[in-house]
């Protein structure tokens, strides 16, 4: 399959991909109009290519579970790529960018590590890590940056422990992760960061081969069906995905609850609402802010639109998660009492987030304990001065100064 550039002949009225938010918690407003008037719309991506933008919940699910669409291999960047830039093959182990049967082969080696039961068994360990960080916060000088003191270290420590990556190495991999998620990073910077992550994990894989311990990398080494390069790629992907995403859900989720005192009061009055609240925060905040890209593997029809083979289709998770057809009432309001309905925060289809049960355990443990421990928690700066991550593939806050 080749990812060729669609011509403007088939897409005469491509509009720019919506990227500008007017409220820190809401996706760009254009999505509402698109859902109503043009749910499968020709779009011009910031990297200079054209394709289609899908904005309704049902259509997003349909695209993401349709085998006629393949995984995207062109990195989503804000910078324009020179015309004709070839799409590189996915790096070894980067199963997010692969289709069956390669994707299935690698994913199946990992799914047993992330089951509901295993992640629930991990909850006490996560709660202990949360409590230690809250203790440290309590004795720190205020204001505290919640991202550095709490939201980032917790998922980062947990994924390091699970994978078997020394947490002492965090400065390196956190910097590299951040580069890989920056929209304005050049292709070369992203590649360098990716290589550095892979080299780091590759060294660990060699060490585990010599002396296996009880962690996922050691398990993969002993299982024996992946090459060292593939294990390095899988490890780097899990490390990247395992800490940046949850860290932002914890920090942005905290900011969102502090900005919705009625919702926060409901949670403080009834702790049994937390499971539901975590799902609602995932729906409402949807931090994969620019959606998921897929590539048509063949010429196909989508709701009356002809889509040429090789064309990129962007499935907007943020838009689908605000679709009133699926989320009745006011989907633009956070409502921790909202009855669960399948949201798209973890994607959909065969690539749906493998670490989602871990994310749930971490979000619940972190958010509930934080708000319990600091009943007077509040922002230390006006909300409009919190630096938002509009410039990153994963949305959230760059920092969140809090006091209590």
């Amino acid at each position, binding site marked *: 399959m080749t990812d060729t550039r669609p011509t403007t002949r088939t897409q005469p009225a491509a509009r720019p991909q919506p990227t500008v938010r007017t409220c820190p918690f809401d996706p760009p407003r254009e999505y509402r109009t698109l859902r109503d008037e043009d749910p499968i719309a020709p779009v011009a991506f910031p990297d200079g290519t054209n394709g289609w933008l899908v904005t309704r919940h049902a259509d997003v699910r349909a695209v993401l579970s349709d085998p006629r669409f393949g995984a995207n291999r062109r990195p989503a960047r804000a910078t324009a790529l020179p015309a004709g830039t070839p799409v590189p093959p996915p790096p070894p182990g980067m199963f997010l960018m692969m289709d069956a049967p390669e994707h299935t082969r690698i994913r199946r080696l990992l799914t047993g590590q992330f089951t*509901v039961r295993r992640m629930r068994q991990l909850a006490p360990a996560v709660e202990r890590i949360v409590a230690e960080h809250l203790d440290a916060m309590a004795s720190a000088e205020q204001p505290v940056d919640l991202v550095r003191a709490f939201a980032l270290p917790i998922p980062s420590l947990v994924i390091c422990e699970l994978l078997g990556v020394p947490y002492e190495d965090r400065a390196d991999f956190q910097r590299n992760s951040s580069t890989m998620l920056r929209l304005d990073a050049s292709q070369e910077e992203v590649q360098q960061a990716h290589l550095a992550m892979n080299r780091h994990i590759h060294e660990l894989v060699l060490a585990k081969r010599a002396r296996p311990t009880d962690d996922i990398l050691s398990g993969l080494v002993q299982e024996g069906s992946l090459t060292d390069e593939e294990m390095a790629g899988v490890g780097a992907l899990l490390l990247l995905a395992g800490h940046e995403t949850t860290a932002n859900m914890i920090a942005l989720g905290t900011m969102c609850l502090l900005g919705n005192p009625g919702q926060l009061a409901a949670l403080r009055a009834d702790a049994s609402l937390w499971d539901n609240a975590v799902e609602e925060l995932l729906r409402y905040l949807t931090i994969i802010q620019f959606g998921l890209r897929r590539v048509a593997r063949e010429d196909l029809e989508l709701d009356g639109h002809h889509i040429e083979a090789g064309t990129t289709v962007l499935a907007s998770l943020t838009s689908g998660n605000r679709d009133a057809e699926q989320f009745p009432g006011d989907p633009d309001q956070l409502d921790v009492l909202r009855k669960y309905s399948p949201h798209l925060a973890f994607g959909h289809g065969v690539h749906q987030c493998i670490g989602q049960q871990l994310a749930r355990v971490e979000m619940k443990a972190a958010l509930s304990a934080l708000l319990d421990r600091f009943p007077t928690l509040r922002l230390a700066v006006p909300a409009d001065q919190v630096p938002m991550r509009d410039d990153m593939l994963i949305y959230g806050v760059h920092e969140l100064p809090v006091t209590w």
Partner: protein
Amino acid sequence: MKVIIDEDKCVGAGQCVLAAEEVFDQREDDGIVVLLDAVPSEELHSSVEDAAARCPALAIEVLK
């Protein structure tokens, strides 16, 4: 109600266990769905339908 699962389609996301843990479990070694009760009683019907709707890989079929 009769529940049919397709192990080959399953991607081990665990959504079915969250929706209806009386009916679905995951295999210890590879996380693939295990059907605990192919003919669930009536009070479980709505959560089983929820599980089928949540499944990202369309691996759960519900016959009525």
